[in-house]
């Protein structure tokens, strides 16, 4: 900093100004550059250990996430805490926290990539390109890699238990759900779930225009998770799961339950379950280590083994999981529309009404 001296010493030299100018520019530019550097910088394991427990938000089955996180901690030494929040609950909480500057979440795993995109546009994400990003094709990562990456594909077939629903009358395709015999016996997740949003978003353009109207007349029931749907199916209290996350099928297979999954020819609505790092994370190093692990081959095998879901990586295979290459999966493609909050509002109103709210 150039010093203003007395008349005696002329401290205002050109060099001083240059230095001052450089320092000023540096003062402004360095943090930005630093952020860019941060985005691609390799996480510092030593620094991570002093950051404290990593906070992970997700919308998956709590037990699966906890098991995975245990393995993660064993492998990397990073401590974690988790909380299950469906996107509908996570977003408002995140918003409120951001507004009041008290946000504390680090890694965010969600079934709604649109939300991630919105966060990115609001400068609320940290960009970090995972080490093994090359294993992910374009459909399974953010356009500019590093904002978010798919950690599993959540396909959503219909499901039923042949002990209570005989195979010959079971639905074969989506429009079969409109059969009056299923009135009051179809279950979906509620409007907070990203998978429900995707189901509506994708199917409204593929199925007949009045499909959802007629579906509403079937008086479907709303659940908080696919586990709840699966549970009621198994207990005989629900006949058809209208859209159930595919890993429930895999889990049922593992438990030797007779449940059946239906992947109609017209396609099965699915979502990318994505992971990203929240902007003002207090634990950037730990968060990056987490994303690295989750997207690595080892991590993907671990996670999808635990949950029973299809990985976006072609080199990860899990028993009983239907091959994503041979099943027609319908992922949301019109991203700008998918991300549009107005669409989400429209969906929430329709879905709530449909499920009786």
């Amino acid at each position: 900093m150039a010093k203003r001296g007395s008349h005696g010493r002329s401290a205002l030299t050109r060099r001083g100004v240059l230095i001052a100018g450089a320092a000023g520019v540096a003062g402004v530019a360095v943090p930005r550059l630093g952020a860019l550097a941060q985005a691609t910088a390799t996480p510092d394991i030593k620094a991570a250990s002093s950051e404290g427990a990593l906070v992970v938000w997700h919308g998956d089955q709590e037990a699966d996430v906890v098991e995975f996180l245990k393995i993660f901690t064993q492998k990397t030494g990073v401590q974690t805490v988790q909380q299950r929040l469906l996107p509908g609950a996570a977003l408002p909480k995140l918003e409120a926290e951001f507004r009041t500057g008290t946000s504390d979440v680090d890694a965010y795993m969600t079934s709604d990539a649109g939300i991630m995109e919105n966060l990115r546009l609001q400068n609320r994400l940290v960009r970090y390109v995972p080490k093994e990003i090359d294993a992910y094709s374009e459909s399974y990562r953010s356009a500019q890699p590093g904002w978010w990456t798919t950690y599993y594909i959540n396909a959503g077939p219909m499901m039923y238990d042949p002990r209570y629903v005989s195979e010959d009358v079971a639905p074969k395709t989506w429009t079969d759900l409109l059969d009056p015999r299923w009135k009051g016996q179809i279950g979906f997740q509620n409007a907070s779930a990203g998978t429900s949003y995707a189901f509506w978003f994708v199917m409204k353009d593929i199925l007949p225009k009045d499909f959802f109207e007629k579906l509403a007349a079937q008086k479907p029931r709303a659940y908080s998770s696919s586990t709840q749907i699966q549970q009621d199916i198994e207990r005989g209290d629900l006949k058809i799961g209208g859209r159930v996350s595919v890993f429930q099928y895999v889990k049922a297979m593992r438990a030797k339950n007779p449940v059946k999954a239906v992947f109609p020819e017209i396609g099965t609505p699915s979502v990318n379950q994505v992971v990203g790092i929240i902007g003002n994370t207090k634990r950037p190093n730990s968060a990056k280590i987490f994303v690295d692990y989750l997207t690595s081959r080892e991590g993907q095998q671990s996670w999808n083994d635990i949950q029973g879901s299809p990985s976006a990586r072609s080199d990860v295979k899990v028993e009983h999981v239907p091959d994503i290459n041979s099943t027609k999966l319908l992922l949301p493609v019109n991203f700008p529309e998918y991300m549009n909050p107005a669409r989400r509002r429209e969906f929430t109103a329709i879905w709530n009404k449909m499920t009786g709210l």
Partner: protein
Amino acid sequence: MAALARALAGRPAGSAAFPRIGPEVWIPLVLLSGSLGYPCFLLVTSAFNVGDPQALPAVEYGIGNFIELGDHLDWIGNTLLIATGGTILGMAIGVGLAWIIHRTTVPGRGLFELLVAIPYPLGPLVGALAWSQLGAPRDGLINRFFVWATGADHPLINIYTPTGIIFVEAIFEAPVAVLIIGAAMQRMDPALEESSSVFGAGKVRTAFKITLPLMLPAILSAALFMFTSTIGSFAIPTILGTSARFYVATNAIYVLMQGYPPNYPLAAALGLVLVAMTGFAVWLVQRVLRKRSFAVISGRNYRPRLVDMRGWTWVMFAIVWAYIGLSLVLPLGTLVLASIQTSSALSFDPAVWTLKNYSYILFDFPTTRQAIVNSLILGVGTGTIGVACATLIAVAVHRSRSRGRKLLEQVTMLPQSIPRLIFAFGFFWMVLTLPVPLYGTLFAVLLAYIVVFLPLAYRGMSGVVVQIDRALEEAARVSGASAARVMRTVTVPLLRSGILATWALLFMVSVREISASLFLSGAHNPVLGPAIFSFWDSGGLPRVSALAVVQAVIILAALYAVRRFAGRELKI
């Protein structure tokens, strides 16, 4: 403390011309008004917010939200349906049980009194979880038994209906009525009924013309408690109603708050409607009681006159056992059975039984481990601080001569008119917007618990304080003890059993609480109620049942401890 003590010494606060508000009154008044008023203010501003739903505070105001509620009158209608039905059924059960236990010669009354009180602290969450597995149309134990026994092709009951919800609400609230009415029965001079007999009135006439009218204040008081409680009830309608497409205000609010974008203003407006309904009920009962405030409550405890039921005795015996079965034995038994299962279908085959659900929640799953510990901490904290505050306030209201005592009492009791879920949602915002870093801490939950449970604590301590004969304290003062010393050596020891009983009650209700902590509990500060709820969401029935059993065990242990160390004085 010195100021409080001095004020309690009875020295007139200020002169007659300018009566002062002593610090023992204004300090709690200010604290309470702040912790109540700010959340309520946030709620109100949100309810009238017609602009950006997430603006905190709102900028655009209007009544649009209330108009929108007009489209959803079924939420309000359903709430009233459950509250009214639950109260009527609950009162019928409560009055009946109180009568049988305190006024008849049915054998085993001491044991009944104990057992009948248990379902209330165990709580609606445990009850709803258990009954969802007892009364599910296909897999519910009762229906399976019915089908097996009679070969019928349809279930006996379906708990996922408004009737089912009313039933579960009623059986878990009934103990409150039994306690309140039982206490009133013990304070009624039996001579009032005896003289009716002497003058020729038979048992029935005496019951209707004498006993019932005299019990009316207690009956109304219990009914009001039940009504306000069921209006704000969250766990039972959510667990039993949501998948049946049956929404009351509380679970509608919960869903509205989870939608994206969340509709806070509509939720707040709905919350305010609930508060209005509750407030109206409180006001109505107070008015009715004001005209009929006979001094039946004499402070003395009588042994009520027992009625020999002769041939009906065994019917009454069966009725009490039926209640205990439905509210305690069946639910706990079902939860234990469900907790040792490997899958969500209930099986009686011991080969599939396992304890791994327990080992999971107690050892493997860090969230639940932490949640259990946190809830114990919260229980102790709420009990201790809550009782201390309630005692100080009760003493200030009943013993000091400062002005504003009545106001202090009313402000203390105010939270009972605000359903806890609603209050918690305002409190959540307050915590977010305060400059103090409370968000995400256990302390925030503790504060919320203290405020919402203070009315309960105050009710308990106030009753005990009133019963202490002033002469006892005056005698100590005459012997030279300072006011603080009197409080320490005479008042507090005399209050001892009341303090223990109230502490235990606070401990139990805070351990089982879910509404007040749902929004405040998170990754860093898991709490048992919300943890059970989150488990119910995605954890699977065996594990959630195990966690519910753990919660029940904690509560039962507290109940046992209180009975052992403080006698039987559990008052509400």
